[in-house]
């Protein structure tokens, strides 16, 4: 989701992940942030940006960035390439009826740079 002008809290800050053109249209890429892996999605059709953890909680696979994005009743979601479990990109909640959920991160775009809000 595009968040403008968020103020940094303590350690939290906007981390410059990559350029807009680095990210594949209507799909995801994986961003390295220290030891963390973040899946970054450019939902070009809706002109929206999302970021989540890259690890799928189902079998702990580093794979969500390689999944397919889409919507369910207009709610943007990501489907894991392994067993096609789907998660909401806005809330991180599992949409395939499982207990697990994923972490989401705010994203902003400025001057062609993509920033992810990390803590």
């Amino acid at each position, binding site marked *: 989701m595009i968040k403008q002008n968020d103020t940094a809290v303590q350690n939290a800050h906007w981390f410059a992940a990559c350029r807009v053109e680095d990210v594949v249209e209507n799909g995801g890429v994986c961003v390295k942030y220290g030891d963390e*892996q973040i899946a970054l999605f450019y939902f070009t059709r809706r002109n929206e940006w999302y970021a989540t953890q890259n690890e799928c909680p189902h079998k702990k696979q580093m794979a969500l960035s390689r999944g*397919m994005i889409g919507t369910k009743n207009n709610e943007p979601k990501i489907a894991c390439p392994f067993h*096609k479990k789907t998660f909401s990109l806005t809330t991180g909640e599992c949409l395939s009826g499982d207990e697990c959920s994923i972490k989401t991160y705010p994203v902003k775009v400025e001057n062609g740079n993509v920033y992810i809000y990390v803590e």
Partner: protein
Amino acid sequence: MKVVVVGNGMVGYKFCEKLIAKKLPDLEIIVFGEEQYPAYDRVHLSDFFNGKNADDLALAPASWYKENGIQLHLGDPVQYIRNSIKLLQTFKGYVLHYDILVMATGSSPFVPRIDGIEKDGVFLYRTVEDLHLIKSYAKKAKRGAVIGGGLLGLEAAKALLDLGIENPDVIEFAPRLMPRQLDEAGAEMLASTLTNIGLNIHTNKNTAKITGDECITGMQFTDGTSLQTDILVVSAGIKPRGELAAECGLETGMNGGIVVNDYMQTSDEFIYAIGECALYNEMIYGLIAPGYEMADVAVHEICRIHSASPVKTKAFTGFDMSTKLKLVGTDVASFGDPFANGDNVRNIILRDTAKGVYKRMNVSADGKYLLGGVLVGDATQYNILLQTCKNKLILPPNPEDMILPARESKKEEGAGIVALPDDALICSCESVNKAAICKAVSEQGCETVDAIKKCTKAGTGCGGCLPMVKDLMVYTMKQQGKYIRNVLCEHFAYSRQELFDLVKLHELKTYDDVLDQLGKGDGCEVCKPAISSILASLWNEMVLKKGNDTSQDSNDRFLGNIQRGGTYSVVPRIPGGEITPEKLIVIGQVAQKYGLYTKITGGQRIDLFGAHVGDLPLIWSELIAAGFESGHAYGKALRTVKSCVGSTWCRFGLQDSVSFAIQVEERYRGLRAPHKIKSAVSGCIRECAEAQSKDFGIIATEKGWNLYVCGNGGSKPQHALLLATDVDSETCIKYIDRFLMFYIRTADPLTRTATWLNKMEGGINYLRNVVVNDSLGMAAQWELEMQGLVDAYVCEWKVAIETPEIRKRFNHFINAPGEKDPTVKFDALRDQKKAANWK
């Protein structure tokens, strides 16, 4: 009580099944059958030529009889009955006492007295044994003929076609085909359709003599004409088998039928007769549904006697002889009084010579009731017409709407089902009415036709009612507010086939274009791969072309199968399984360099596992430089064409199966389809390449190739069925082109060819008609389209490594190119490695 059944045919079996269900105490059932096999489905006897055997056709396995306490003696006909002392004796010498005797001896083909009919090469068409004989004799026959242009005769002619006999002759004595079911105009339409697909129809022909020394070589007719033939099947009607009954003094009719009353009792009250041997009201019922009804009546009567109840519970009251058949791929049906005519009858007739369709409705003069009719070429409305006729439903103001082509009358059909009374008989074989089917859906939660079949038995007999069962299911589910339309997902209100046609029509090339023009919303993981597959099948453009890359299934997007841990497998194409030592060495070197686990696959090639996404372009660059190309192991596309070594080395080989496998694999490599497709070529019938378990499989014969289609391994294995025999390589490829294009165009997403065929109305016969006889007139277009796809083929891995924007995508981290995913872990295993277990 000891019940002895004479005859283990369809009706004899049904009688046992129904009697067992009553769970009567102190009941002993003993069955004698003349044939060697337990009762089998004679109605589908011709499927024998599509690869079914007696076991496949069996109504129940021999063990079923045992489990239900029935003594079954096969190959042991009853020879005489001494009814005064209730005793019988069999061929093998059993002498047995009975309390109740049930004659279910069926009928035998009627054999006209023709000079020379005893010659070799003249056959009947009634039992599995007959078909065995025909099949082996037909191998040396070039020309074939059938006496009899009725239902069975035409089926026999079709069998000759299936056995590879071209243009068999059908000889009918009457002035028209199927004289008992069809009027003149209907029979004429049928004859012209059958002529178009290769039968020679002769009506008004009376055979005088069969010529030849020991074996038949020809036939002479009373009009002085003659023809040559190497095999003849006689199918000129049936003769009820009442000889045993007549010998012990039971009353029989002129043609031998055993006379029965409303309760299926013969002139001896302890002896019953059911099925095709029973003569009721001077009529023999040569169909299965009335036979089953007779079995039911006899069971009711025997239960009554067993419980010594004075109240009769069920009587036979005659039976509707309406029929619907598919003859050589052509619908034929007649119902009610097909011939009704005269002052009190209005005939409505629709005739389309171009389409080969003839429909006739006989309506009462006041326009209120349907009396009967005939359908040739298109019998989609048969069920509703039959129900309207049988239930005396009031016709709509324009009754002709009921026989207009299906499109326009779709609405009426729905309305038609609604109007049926609850007790309308939908499945006459198993007597299941409308209410029972609706209840199975609404109360027992059956939501597939298979579930309804299981629960109610409807549709398990001849299967003719299945379309109506499905309509009733859909209707009941709709009433419960359930969603059933076969649409792709929430973004597309179309089925895959509809989308395929629309995408082609509008020449759409990207996923987004398709979504904008035909769908709504923003897509999902269901419609994206399905549409991508359609686009690939239609245009065969590189799948990762910008705009389509992220709508590919993950495996297609990275041109590799993602494996446990997140690494990929690499499968270079090895057509036909043939590989040079030089290429083997390259595979070894590449695997060594990139630390890959190697394994010979079940598809006769080599899989290299454990490649990091970033290494994929490097690995493929080396493989491609050595002459390899993508094996599409990741795509819903052609996988492997396995081969056996064939005539180049094998002492049994009839043709060069390796060369043909390579040719086939190279033709269809990269072809994308609703699901993966696999093939194999065997050099002889020993079948070392397992071609009969493939989507299309080819087996060499002396003269060329036999082509099998729609086989499957996987969780529900299914043998492929024979599509064409002894074709040359060129024809074989032509048929495969058509077969694949038909499949690609019409299958649902992720449906293998076997499942696709299982859902196809008319099954393999219909498919053969489309592919071999070009009944849809699409063959030329499909061949052209396939050639277009073949010409458009490029190795997608080659394009991927040569196109910087695509190659850039093969990196784990966007902000740290070249760095591997540090979470990927391997364990050691037998000098190689394996993916670490799930965490």
